[in-house]
């Protein structure tokens, strides 16, 4: 199939945008002090690239080209504002604005400042003034470099919904006068937790989609992993940020092994471990080691990474150290008590000490309101019931789980398992 040169240039601009736009928008936001305006300026530069690069060719340093173009637009914008203000105010104002903005413009492309700007952008995108959905959309868009339609496709919602969510998010940030800064002092931990939560949410949606016809969406996992790695590079001494990277690297190592060629899920213990990506496992284990060396006690992400590492290091499913996993879940349950952690712990207990012990714990969770519509509760309970020979009840539970999940391949698998009893 013949491709036009224009197609290739457009795809190159997409690639450059993905690589450069976070730094571009971060640098511009610091200059103009407004996220929405910064994004507009960056997009103007992209439009200019779309017009000029097909004719002039892709410049040697496309990032600098985009930044230079956006800078000029920024100056134009300030000049226009200044001209408007001149009508009511004195003439010296323009000069003042020039003096105010010029030095900033020059330092914006200083490499040393870029890391700080990116980190500010991370924190503003995940600001608690925004809903979690808005944080996710804004993060994917501004830090992941995804287009609105790509985000919409990943989350199975209309493009207009995502576009609106992003516009509203930016407006909220402007109205709330959220400063473009890295939080200091006691605020930092809580704000970082919000950032980590957003990245992990993206990863999980890719790892086991809550809805739709695909069991996994590897692209979304890759996006989250990339965001996590960037964050890990920006705050390399934060044990939980590094712990989250470790967790995602190890989980991602199983992406290709946890789905059949036709798209059905393959449970962890049935996966072909030869298909696990050893490179990602090594990266994950190295990050985990680093996370553990940074903090006195492991945080929730480092603990989950340690659990993932237990699986990654077992050569066969039978070789899994379930007692160690139970111990890690004990620690996690103490640190971050939640019925979902209890459910996972019950699975580990069932493997380490027999299905009766696991079932006892799961039975106690049936009354949990938070798990009322969580499909994995009946799925786990069904498995344990089957293991202790209560086949009719197992079937009922697996059918209940199938009815609760929104993910098509997962539902098919649960129905298939139910049909065995």
């Amino acid at each position, binding site marked *: 199939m013949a491709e036009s040169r224009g197609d*290739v240039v457009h*795809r*190159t601009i*997409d*690639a*450059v945008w*993905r*690589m450069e736009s976070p730094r571009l928008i971060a640098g511009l936001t610091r200059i103009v002090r407004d996220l929405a305006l910064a994004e507009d300026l960056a997009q103007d530069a992209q439009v200019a690239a779309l017009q000029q690069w097909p004719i002039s060719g892709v410049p*040697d*340093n*496309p990032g600098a080209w985009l930044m230079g173009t956006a800078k000029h637009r920024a100056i134009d914008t300030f000049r226009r504002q200044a001209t408007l203000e001149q009508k009511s105010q004195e003439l010296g104002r323009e000069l003042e604005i020039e003096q105010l903005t010029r030095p900033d413009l020059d330092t914006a492309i200083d490499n040393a400042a870029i890391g700080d700007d990116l980190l500010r952008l991370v924190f503003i995108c995940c600001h608690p003034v925004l809903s979690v959905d808005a944080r996710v959309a804004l993060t994917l868009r501004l830090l992941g470099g995804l287009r609105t339609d790509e985000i919409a496709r990943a989350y199975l919602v209309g493009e207009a919904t995502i576009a609106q969510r992003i516009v509203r998010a930016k407006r909220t940030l402007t109205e709330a006068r959220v400063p473009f800064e890295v939080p200091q002092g006691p605020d930092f931990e809580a704000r970082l937790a919000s950032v980590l939560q957003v990245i992990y949410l993206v990863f999980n949606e890719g790892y086991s989609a809550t809805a739709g016809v695909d069991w996994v969406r590897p*692209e979304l996992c*890759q996006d989250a*992993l*990339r965001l996590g*790695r*960037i964050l*890990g*590079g920006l705050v390399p001494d934060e044990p939980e940020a590094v712990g989250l990277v470790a967790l995602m690297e190890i989980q991602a190592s199983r992406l*290709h092994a946890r*789905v059949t*060629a036709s798209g059905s899920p393959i449970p962890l213990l049935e996966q072909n471990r030869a*298909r696990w990506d050893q*490179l990602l496992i090594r990266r994950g284990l190295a990050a985990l080691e680093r996370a553990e060396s940074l903090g006195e006690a492991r945080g929730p992400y480092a603990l989950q990474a340690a659990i993932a590492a237990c699986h990654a290091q077992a050569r066969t499913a039978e070789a899994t150290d379930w007692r160690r996993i139970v111990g890690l879940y004990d620690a996690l349950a103490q640190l971050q008590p939640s019925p979902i952690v209890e459910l996972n712990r019950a699975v580990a207990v069932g493997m380490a000490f027999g299905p009766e012990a696991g079932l006892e714990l799961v039975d106690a969770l049936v009354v949990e309101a938070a798990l009322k519509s969580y499909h994995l509760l009946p799925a786990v309970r069904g498995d344990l019931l089957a293991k202790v020979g209560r086949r009719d009840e197992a079937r009922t539970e697996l059918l209940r789980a199938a009815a609760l999940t929104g993910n098509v391949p997962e539902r098919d698998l649960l129905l298939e398992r139910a049909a065995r009893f």
Partner: protein
Amino acid sequence: MKYFMKTTPTPDQPLAPPTPDMMGEMGAYIEEGFRNGTLVATGALDPRTTRIQSSGGKITVTDGPFSEAKEAVVGWAIVEVKSKEEAIELSKRFWQIVGDGQGTLQRIYDPNEAPQS
């Protein structure tokens, strides 16, 4: 998606010997790539190859061909990217540091992916 890239030096066009500046720049570039995950692995290949051929059940092993140029060490990298164009952009930055020379890029398929014609 992953891409395999390597330099393909020829005896008449070996890469320029690295200067301390170039090595510093390359070191920073490689470190950044490893940190953000675009660079999966990188290394160098001995230019001397051993050829193995199977024909009618008979295996023939031949050493060579050998390159005369000592500088003809082959540099390679595996990158994780979202598109071919992104791989090309990464490669462009490599060559901006290295200077004159040539190389190739090839898509690597994961076990579950089928090559597209």
